[in-house]
Structure formats: structure tokens, C-alpha cells
């Protein structure tokens, strides 16, 4: 761990590196565009009018701030830490993804781009992007692995209703990484008029930093809300991690508060030991993919291996580079939860609190179920409830041997 005079919040450096992670590993065709975006984003950050418009949209369109809800029954059931849920599932479109998308679509408009593309796994980022594009009247194309198109059918329909074109991707494993490959392939051909709206804190610089900044509204609100509720900062933060944007949004504003213990939960799929998982920090090693150096699931040669998770949003063999850096310097602990544990957590929150969580967020809850009972009752724990689970109902029903409509 770094000494106290060093901040964990100053990254990346001017070349987009967090330690050895991050960077700009993209085809030359895209490099000038990435540099333009970096310049435009730096200007936007310094422009009060940009922030004002974003704040307005977050409040009046997305419905922020999201509540910080004390989950009394869950707390009593687990019998340890006092559990608060950061209710980002209550945002318009049902997840934290809208925070980032509103920022990026404003960037697209500011840069004069006339078309937006996005990749999506669970469909939450795709729905959020389609939504913002409808609002700003910008044509939108969403790339989605054909396996995910199948398992997240409600979100596919939603995107189409919102006027987006959904392009199923059949290359590779037909999931999130392949959707990202295909979005990059589209972008290389269309970069003159197209803005690529990346859904997580990954990709070439400046995306990991930009998406993080847009998501930090989660942690900034949590800070204020917890001060108001308890008169002090939380002791423990827990969030699920695929690419890691909801976690980074919650964690980043607290990185320099040494009293706050921070835990990220990866998807262990069928179990880390089976090799069928999506836990790149736990089961992977550093490599270069999708424009950045970060922990990746790969074989000895560097061929990318297929991730597995019941949650389409976590089914990605990489992770945002800043998480890789926070793992190596020890500021954040990274653990994992299996498909079965997530399903159990999903069911528990439905029954105890009347909240249907996304399967992604259910991974965070699965760890809370293990972790909270080991903590004292005055430990203030915040879990990011990053998405709602309506989209997952058919899939969970199938797992339970029921049909969603019966």
C-alpha cells in the first residue's frame, strides 16, 4: 500500500497509464480520434456549461440522486454490518449505465458526431445508449453478442423500441468481448462521423478515466448521503465487477480515505477452479486487449480465453485498467462469487427487501452475505445495487425450472 502522502486518485498519467496498466493500444486509424477525444474531454471538464447540462440531465432525466437505502431486514438477517444499498437500479433505464452514457452522448454532440455506436453485454449499456440517443435524436447502433441477444431478450426489444439498431455478433464466443471487437471494427471504418460510447472503465485512454469520472456521481452522492444518515463515512464498500464501471464510480471518491475498506466482487461462474469464470483479476494476468493493458483471461501464448458467467454483464475476460492497478497496489480487495451464490443472493433480496436485483449486482450481494456477518454491528457497509433484475427474470425462471409467464 502506498504511503499516506501519495494519492490513489491522481491517475492516469498524461499517456493514460495507471502504473503499467491502461495506455492506448489501438490501430493507427483510431489514434488521431482518441487524441481528439482526449482534448475535447479535457475542454469539457473545464467548461462549467458542460457540467451544468450533465447535472441537469442526471437530476431531471435520470432521476438522481439515487437513494442510499438502509436495508433493515437484510441487515438483521445477516446479523453483522449495517447494510446500506446505493439504489442505482432506480435510475432511468434501470442501472448505473445512464450516468456514463449521458456524459458521453453530450461529448458526441459537442464533437459534432452524427452517429453513436456501443457494445453491450447484458443490454443495460445498450439500452442506456439507445435511450440517450433517442433523447438527442442521434442514430445509434448497438453491437451485442448473439448469445447475449438470446439470454437478454427483453433488453434487445427495448433497444429496438428506442430506435436503435441491434447488430448481433456471431464471431468468437458471441458475447461481450466479441461485441467490443465488432464495435471497434465499425469505428475504424466510420470514425469521421461516429462516436464510440464505451460502456465501462476500459478501452484506450481517455475512456477509462472519462467513464470513471462520469460514474463518480455514485460515490460522491454516497459520501454526502452517508454523512447525512450517520454523520460519518462508511467503513466498507462492496460492488460487483465486470469491466468495473459501477464499482469504480462508487470506489474512486473514497480511495484516499484509508478508513474505508473497499471490496470488488468478480464473477466466479462455475467456480474459479473449474476455469469457467469471468474473474480476470483472480484468474488472469496482465495483457493487452481492446486498447489497454490490464488483467485478462488468456492462455500461455496470450490467446484470449472465453469468460463464463450467468450474468451477461460480467461475462468479459478483461477489466478496467485502473482496477488492475488498484489490485496491484493493494488499495482495493478483489474477491469473487459464483453463479449459484449470485442466484441465492438474487432470491434473498427479492424476498427480504422486495427488490429484484440484476444478476450482476447479485454477485456483490453474494459477497455481502458472506462478509457482513463477520463485521461488527456498527460497521457501515454500502453495497452498490447497480442494476435492477427485471431483464433477468426469464433467465432466472429457466434456471429454477419455471417459465417466466407461469
Amino acid at each position: 500500500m502506498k504511503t499516506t502522502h501519495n494519492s490513489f486518485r491522481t491517475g492516469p498519467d498524461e499517456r493514460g497509464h495507471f502504473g503499467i496498466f491502461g495506455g492506448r493500444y489501438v490501430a493507427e486509424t483510431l489514434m488521431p480520434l482518441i487524441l481528439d477525444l482526449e482534448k475535447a474531454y479535457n475542454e469539457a471538464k473545464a467548461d462549467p456549461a458542460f457540467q451544468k447540462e450533465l447535472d441537469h440531465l442526471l437530476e431531471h432525466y435520470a432521476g438522481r440522486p439515487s437513494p442510499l437505502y438502509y436495508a433493515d431486514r437484510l441487515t438483521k438477517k445477516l446479523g453483522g454490518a449495517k447494510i446500506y444499498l446505493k439504489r442505482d437500479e432506480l435510475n432511468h433505464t434501470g442501472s448505473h449505465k445512464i450516468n456514463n452514457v449521458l456524459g458521453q452522448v453530450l461529448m458526441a454532440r459537442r464533437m459534432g458526431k452524427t452517429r453513436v455506436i456501443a457494445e453491450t453485454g447484458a443490454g443495460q449499456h445498450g439500452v442506456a445508449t439507445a435511450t440517450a440517443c433517442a433523447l438527442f435524436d442521434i442514430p445509434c447502433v448497438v453491437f451485442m453478442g448473439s448469445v447475449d441477444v438470446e439470454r437478454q431478450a427483453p433488453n434487445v426489444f427495448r433497444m429496438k423500441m428506442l430506435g436503435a439498431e441491434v447488430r448481433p455478433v456471431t464471431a468468437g464466443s458471441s458475447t461481450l468481448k466479441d461485441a467490443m471487437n465488432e464495435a471497434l471494427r465499425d469505428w475504424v471504418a466510420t470514425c469521421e462521423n461516429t462516436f464510440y460510447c464505451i460502456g465501462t472503465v476500459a478501452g484506450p485512454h481517455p475512456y477509462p478515466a472519462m467513464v470513471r469520472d462520469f460514474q463518480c456521481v455514485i460515490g460522491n452522492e454516497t459520501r454526502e448521503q452517508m454523512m447525512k444518515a450517520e454523520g460519518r463515512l462508511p467503513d466498507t464498500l462492496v460492488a460487483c465487477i465486470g469491466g468495473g464501471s459501477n464499482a469504480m464510480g462508487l470506489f474512486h471518491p473514497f480511495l484516499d480515505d484509508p478508513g474505508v475498506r473497499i471490496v470488488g466482487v468478480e464473477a466466479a461462474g462455475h467456480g474459479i477452479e473449474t476455469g469457467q469464470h469471468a474473474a480476470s483479476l483472480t484468474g488472469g494476468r496482465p495483457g493487452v486487449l481492446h486498447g489497454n493493458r490490464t488483467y485478462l483471461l488468456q492462455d500461455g501464448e496470450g490467446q484470449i480465453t472465453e469468460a463464463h458467467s450467468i450474468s451477461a454483464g460480467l461475462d468479459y475476460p478483461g477489466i478496467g485498467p485502473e482496477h488492475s492497478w488498484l489490485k496491484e497496489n493493494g488499495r482495493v480487495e478483489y474477491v469473487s462469487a459464483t453463479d449459484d451464490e449470485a442466484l441465492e443472493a438474487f432470491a434473498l433480496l427479492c424476498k427480504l427487501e422486495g427488490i429484484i436485483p440484476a444478476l450482476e449486482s447479485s454477485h456483490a450481494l453474494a459477497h455481502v452475505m458472506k462478509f457482513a456477518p463477520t463485521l461488527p454491528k456498527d460497521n457501515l457497509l454500502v453495497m452498490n445495487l447497480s442494476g435492477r433484475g427485471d431483464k433477468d427474470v426469464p433467465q432466472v425462471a429457466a434456471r429454477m425450472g419455471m417459465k417466466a409467464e407461469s
Partner: protein
Amino acid sequence: MSRITRRFAQLKSDKRAGLVAYISAGDPNAEVSYEILKGLPAAGADLIELGMPFTDPMADGPAIQLAGQRALKAGMTVDKTFDMVRRFRQEAGDNDTPVLLMGYYNLVYQRGPERFCKEAAAAGVDGFILVDLPPEEADELKPFAEAHGLDTVLLTAPTTDDKRLPAVLKYSAGFVYFVSVLGITGTKSATEDAVRTHVERIKRHTDLPVGVGFGIRTPEQAAAVARHADAAVVGTAIVERVKAGLDEQGNPTPGLVPGVFAYIRTLAEGVRGVRKV
């Protein structure tokens, strides 16, 4: 002087442009792929790009994606790619035709740039074209490549403007590769006018030879590029000839290798038909 530099000097004294032929190493399997590699110079290839198959080839179109998948399925590895080049130098005895490895940086990074360069050079490789290693990140490879006498060929694109071009050229050695269209491999083709304009622009900044690729499929297109550039690079269309030589089960037919060579001969005729001043 590197093999690549020697070859371009030779082409210049022959008053013609060169043909750069791309194949995916191990497509459809290591043995047939070696047969193709071995025969490329006789079919008219002046330089060879050997693609290293990768699971996530983000800058490639469907044809080269599928070629990589065929190779990986058949068990292709980086070591076997080095072996192909070693056999090409030793068994086939070709000590003049430059061979460049083309692909994505993660395969280099996993082995470690220093070890990768050392092993590549020992096998008889002459340089690299790494799609996702722009000048901003090239420092992690360049010193090791130089130490082992390997040329790093960087890509320029229509989006690389005059301000940025010097940064790209600073890291490029052997030649510089102009990606003539916005897009992935094997999709669009550039007009001859666009190729001429961009090549002239690049040549105002450098004495390095300029190779032009993406979208060249016919002898006429190859000739059009040869009128302005120092080399025409053909990849997708060659890889499609490999695929055309597979039977329904994906096994190579006896016509595969001759089919590839016949096609390359037509491209070479196109390129060699252009007399340079």
C-alpha cells in the same frame, strides 16, 4: 543493412514496385501453410507478411478472422510460426526474401518483447507489423527490435495528418505501411487518386519506402498502387484463395496450394507490368 532495406533497394534498381503477400501462419494447418510460404517467392512475392493468428483480431475483416480461427483450431502457436520461418530459411534456403510477422501485440507481450525479438530474429524474421502498437506505445518494443536487427514497420492511415506523421515515421524502419482506407482488412478499396495523394504526402516526410495495403484484390488494383507506391500489400484476397481450396469439411484439397500461387502470379504480373522511372 536489413533484408527489407536490401529488397527495396533491389526493387528500386529494377525500376519496379514490390508485391507483399500476406498469409495467416498455420492456415489451414501448419504443413500446408509452410508449403504456401515456401512457394511464395517463386510465385512472385517480393516480401512476405506472416500473420500470427489471434483470437481477437480487431482490425481484421471476416476473411482474416476466419483464417486465424482455422489456424488456431489446427493448433498453431507462436513457436510453430517461428518454426515455419526457420524452415523457410534453412530447408528452403531462402536467404533473401524478407519475412515480417504481422499481428497483435498481446502475443509479443506475453512472451516478453525482449525474448520475442531474440527468438524471432534467430528464426530468420526480419520485422514486425503490429496493428495495435501505435507510436505512443512503441517504446516498449523498439529498443529490443533494434538490438536484434528487426525492423518495426508502423502503420499510417488516412487519419494520420501531417502533424502526426513524423511521430509515426520516427518509429518506423524498413518501410512504412499506408492503410489506404478507413476500415478493417478486406472491405473497401481506395481510388488510385487517393493512393497517389497520400503516398506523395508521406514521401514528403520520409525517404522510407511506402507499402500500400487494404482492399487490393485484382492485378489492375495492384498495378494502380504500384504506379505510386513502393509496394502493394495483398492479404484478404490471398487468404480467400486458401479458403476456396478447402473441401466442405474444411480439409485442404490438392488444388489449394497451386490455386494460391496462380492467383499470386497474376498479382505479381500486375505489379511488375508497371515500369518505374
